């Protein structure tokens, strides 16, 4: 039928049995990388600490050639990733054309087993985990390669790759685990690696603070995850995915308090990991880490774990319309809220951080309204274009840093006000980042167009579902989501214009040292750019495929991802349809998907064009001259709505104050005071009675008589 028919037919699932190929090795390779790099890291750290103790600083790059500790990781780090990626691909293609309605489970050993509980160290291969594995190992490989260039001159080079490999191991465990506890191992493990990598340059107080904040805020989410597991265990007697998802529709009542509680607790966990309101505050601070880390952990993979969790538990969410509406609401409000903050940030990574929070909000909206495939779809495309944006910003910062370093100018290398006109120096970075910007803005035919459009459309379509009790609410979500999309187009354009266009503001002598990144960094950018263009084609929405947007049916993989994920999400979809009725084919205010797709892409493109013209002509002051915005909405947005300050005032300080009070008053005065009082009282009475032990017989006789009198008196009266 089309040009791509052979490809299309290959991608359909069939009847054959899926025999995974060395799935455990996919996990083991990054772990091996961690061990080897970790060993090198300790070796090199021993050298650096020796130098420090002798009073000097250590420079591993003094000697030529570089020491093995700083060359081998370039092989090991990306090498194990390549191996894992190839294995993931083999398994992915092996799974195609096979019957995947039951996940393939490999159980390695019995992890925690008691009389009533059985948790295996088991992994599960199914459509969802296979997609996630591809994204993690694929994008991860590119970022590892990029890091070889980016981190080249860092003394902590081997340690960096050790942490990065360990992260991939835990991230794979998170998506491959066949039960909630194994997933939780990955869940907290990636949090640990995030902590270690945010605080990678740990000598800097601010950076290690940021790592600590990320860990503690995430633990608030983990608390929800833990409790959800407890509820699930009491309801099902197991924590394995398969029996829970199969049994849930029968064992849990639709809309019951129990299932709503479980789903909302999982949402708390997801909000922590995926930086949603109210737990998003750690992610912007997490930008303290090296930029490739932000790309891998804080954009492409770890922060999407919450979306994965909801998709993985789709049946539970589908059973609770309240929880669904909450997930979607949290998502869309976060999307809009973070977008407003991004409007007024000057740090290029902060813009991208809030953008990530905002895009994750879209994914939550998607999985919240029951469009699990759309949510996962946006997760995949976002991994491409946001990783690209972060790596691109890394290339920019890298270049800025070198330029400023050359003349010892102590300007902020990440502040966009100090940039401008970088297009001239970094054409590849410029071009690839524009592709990503168009993708995130939702301009056709870039990847983000298809995925974002499908989410927004799903919100609108479910708003009009026959018997959706929250139809009105979904309509609001739909409007908010459209608004946030326009903001996205604006702040991204602003970022691109401030960074790459106009006059260069870095300074004349500095500008001479601005340069394009080396090949090892630009190649990953280019590959990601290709993916940001074509990545959306894996799931062209059905209604669009026959229209102009689907090139009138010529795009090959219409609804492919949706079909691929069908085994994982079909029962959730059935539950939702059963209770909410069929979805509408009209948006809340009329119009079909094609029309709204046209409206949104035209609007997005218009915002990009208009704002780039408007901003392009504006003159920007460099950071030292500009200072902070002092009035109006700009100041509030620049200060991120003062949420950090609010949390500090209402949570952090009270807990600290209470802790001090517990120590200084309850523990020291009340409890220990009582203990010491008893001891002293005993001693006092002992001392008092010792006063009577004078050895004088007449005193004893007197006391004896007195006592006798008292007894007599008591007896008489």
């Amino acid at each position: 039928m089309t040009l791509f028919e052979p490809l299309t037919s290959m991608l359909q699932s069939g009847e054959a049995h899926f025999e995974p190929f060395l799935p455990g090795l996919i996990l083991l390779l990054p772990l091996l990388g961690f061990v080897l790099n970790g060993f090198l890291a300790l070796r090199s750290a021993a050298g650096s600490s020796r130098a420090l103790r002798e009073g000097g600083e250590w420079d591993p790059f003094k000697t030529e050639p570089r020491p093995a500790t700083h060359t081998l990781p370039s092989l090991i780090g990306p090498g194990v990733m390549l191996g894992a990626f190839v294995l993931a691909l083999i398994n992915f293609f092996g799974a195609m054309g096979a019957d995947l309605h039951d996940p393939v489970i490999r159980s390695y050993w019995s992890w925690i087993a008691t009389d009533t509980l059985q948790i295996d160290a088991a992994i599960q291969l199914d459509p969802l985990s296979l997609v996630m594995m591809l994204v993690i190992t694929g994008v991860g490989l590119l970022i590892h390669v990029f890091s070889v260039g980016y981190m080249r001159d860092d003394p902590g080079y081997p340690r960096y790759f050790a942490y990065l490999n360990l992260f991939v191991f835990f991230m794979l465990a998170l998506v491959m685990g066949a039960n909630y506890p194994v997933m939780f191992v990955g869940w907290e493990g990636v949090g640990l690696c995030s902590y270690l990598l945010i605080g990678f340059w740990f000598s800097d107080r601010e950076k290690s603070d940021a790592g600590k904040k990320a860990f503690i805020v995430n633990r608030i989410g983990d608390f929800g995850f833990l409790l959800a597991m407890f509820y699930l265990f009491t309801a099902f007697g197991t924590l394995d995915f398969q029996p829970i998802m199969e049994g849930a529709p029968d064992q849990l009542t639709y809309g019951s308090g129990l299932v709503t509680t479980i789903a909302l607790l999982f949402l708390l966990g997801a909000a922590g990991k995926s930086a949603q309101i109210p737990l998003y505050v750690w992610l912007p601070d997490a930008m303290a880490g090296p930029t490739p880390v932000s790309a891998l952990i804080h954009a492409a993979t770890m922060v999407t774990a919450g979306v994965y969790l909801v998709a993985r538990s789709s049946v539970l969410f589908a059973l609770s319309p309240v929880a669904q509406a909450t997930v979607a609401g949290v998502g869309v409000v976060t999307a809009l809220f973070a977008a407003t903050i991004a409007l007024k940030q000057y740090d290029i990574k902060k813009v991208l951080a809030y953008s990530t929070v905002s895009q994750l909000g879209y994914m939550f909206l998607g999985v919240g309204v029951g469009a699990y495939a759309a949510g996962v779809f946006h997760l995949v495309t976002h991994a491409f274009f946001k990783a690209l944006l972060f790596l691109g910003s890394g290339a920019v910062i890298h270049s800025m840093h070198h330029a400023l370093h050359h003349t010892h100018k102590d300007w902020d290398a990440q502040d966009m006000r100090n940039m401008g006109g970088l297009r001239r120096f970094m054409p590849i970075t410029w071009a690839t980042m524009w592709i990503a910007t168009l993708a995130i803005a939702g301009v056709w035919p870039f990847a983000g167009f298809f995925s974002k459009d499908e989410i927004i459309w799903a919100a609108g379509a479910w708003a009009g579902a026959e018997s959706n009790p929250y139809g009105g609410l979904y309509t609001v979500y739909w409007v908010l989501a459209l608004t946030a999309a326009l903001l996205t187009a604006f702040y991204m354009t602003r970022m691109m214009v401030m960074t790459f266009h106009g006059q260069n503001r870095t300074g004349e002598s500095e500008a001479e040292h601005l340069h394009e990144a080396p090949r090892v960094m630009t190649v990953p950018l280019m590959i990601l750019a290709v993916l940001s263009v074509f990545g959306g084609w894996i799931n062209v929405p059905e209604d669009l495929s026959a229209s102009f947007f689907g090139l009138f049916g010529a795009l090959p993989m219409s609804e492919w991802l949706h079909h691929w994920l069908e085994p994982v999400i079909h029962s959730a979809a059935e539950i939702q349809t059963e209770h909410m009725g069929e979805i509408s084919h009209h948006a809340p205010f009329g119009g079909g998907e094609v029309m709204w797709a046209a409206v949104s892409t035209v609007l997005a493109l218009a915002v990009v064009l208009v704002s780039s013209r408007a901003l392009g002509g504006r003159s920007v002051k460099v950071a030292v001259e500009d200072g902070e915005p002092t009035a109006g909405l700009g100041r509030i947005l620049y200060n991120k709505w003062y949420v950090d300050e609010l949390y500090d005032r209402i949570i952090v300080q009270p807990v600290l104050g209470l802790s001090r009070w517990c120590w200084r008053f309850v523990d020291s005065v009340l409890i220990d005071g009582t203990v010491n009082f008893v001891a002293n009282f005993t001693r006092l009475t002992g001392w008092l009675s010792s006063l009577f032990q004078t050895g004088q017989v007449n005193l004893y006789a007197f006391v004896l008589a007195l006592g006798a009198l008292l007894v007599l008196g008591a007896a008489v009266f």
Partner: protein
Amino acid sequence: MTDFLLSIGYESWILHALIWGPLVAMIHVLASPEDRAKHIAFRWSLALLAVSLGLWWAFDPGSGGFTMTSSRPWISAWGVDYALGVDGISLFMILLTTFTTPIAILGSFEYIGKREKAFYALMLLLEMGVVGVFAATDVFLFYVFFELTLVPMYFIVGIWGGERRVYAAVKFFLYTALGSLLMLVAILYLYFQAGASSFSIAALLDAPLTLQEQLWLFAAFAIAFAIKVPVFPLHTWLPDAHVEAPTPGSVVLAAVLLKMGTYGFLRFLLPLFPEAAQHPTVVTVMMVLGVVGIIYAAWVAAVQPDAKKLVAYTSVAHMGFVVIGIFALTVNGIQGGLVVMISHGISTGALFLLLGMMYERRHTRLIEDFGGIGRVAPLFATAFVITALASIGLPGTSGFVGEFLALLGTFETHPTVAILASTGVIFAAYYMLPMVQRVLFNKLDKEENRSFADLSRREIWILAPLLALMIWIGTNPSPFLERMGPSVERVIERVQLSSQEARLEGIELPGPAAEPNPTPARTGGQ
């Protein structure tokens, strides 16, 4: 392995060897020259560890009762027996003791600078006492060993401790002695109530008691053990003792001495007084104290300027998980509690060793005196971070398995308690990470810290087995769980069965309480 052990009659002599071995070692140490003392003590403790490891294979969980039992009359006039045995609960406590002792001894090589002979002799005496506590199946014998542990610890803190060592040692001694006196009274009452001809646990289980008697006796035992654990608000002796104790003292105190309290809960409180242990008021009180301990101690820990005091308070928080796990009376709760006991012994022991190493290098325990240590001592920092993570229960480490099971088991019967206690995972990060940051990270801005030496070979040998165990138990706790399982189930059965009986017979236990055997009671009271 098992066959080999059987062929050498391992089962019949191992427990005796582990009790009397330390005593022989102690005599050897005392008879040796001062400068040889530590090496002799270390070798003996290592040999005892090696011998005790056979328990891992020789122990057969069976139906959960005592195995390797042996008994001979000791004070036959009172029916006191020298009776030993081991079950799935005490097995790991004994192994934890024999495992911790050589590590603590090796950890004192640099720290202990005076009167070494006496010190190592006392450490071995302590080992004897603790093993005795866990191996005794006769309540009187248990009590003797329980008291015996007080003496060496008192001297270890009082002689080799810090500035306020005498205050701390006396507080420790009086506090615990007070508790055990209450227990002694209760034991004697129980003995006469049972019409007793024997102090063995099995005999005392049959003591006919009214609910009211049970509650009183429960209270007496519970206070004794709760001081040891320690349960909030009876915990204030612990931070003082820890801060003043020398490193090896802290290690043994945290790793095994505290466990005698929770072990007592499991071994005596639940089986001896099942009615009381299930009484709603009692359960509520214990649960509330456990939860308060978890949260309150975490908060207090978070604001401590002294690193050692911080870790001491975290012990109270950790033991809170054990307390709620035990009184939840579920298999998962109690097994979780046991794993927390093991895990806490390993990770907190390791933390105290690390803090001791810091003290040896810098002669300060204040967190603010450090900073940037990660740059000069990478191995030390790595060990510190792994230990801290195990302590706050990161999945994949031993701490997680224990806390997860304890909370899950608690949730099964007391969801509200488990929900409140689960906030402990947040507060654990809140107390531990700032300390890690302020010690290892941040700027290396103090000149003295530049010369902070990394781990020596000896120190690596001390820490490596502890770190390996944290990961091993975290990733594969099944061999542990399956060995303790039957004994835990047996405890629960005993408690639930007796309450069923009581219910069948109409709540009022047919107690000859009104007219107990009055004669022995009077004489015994003297």
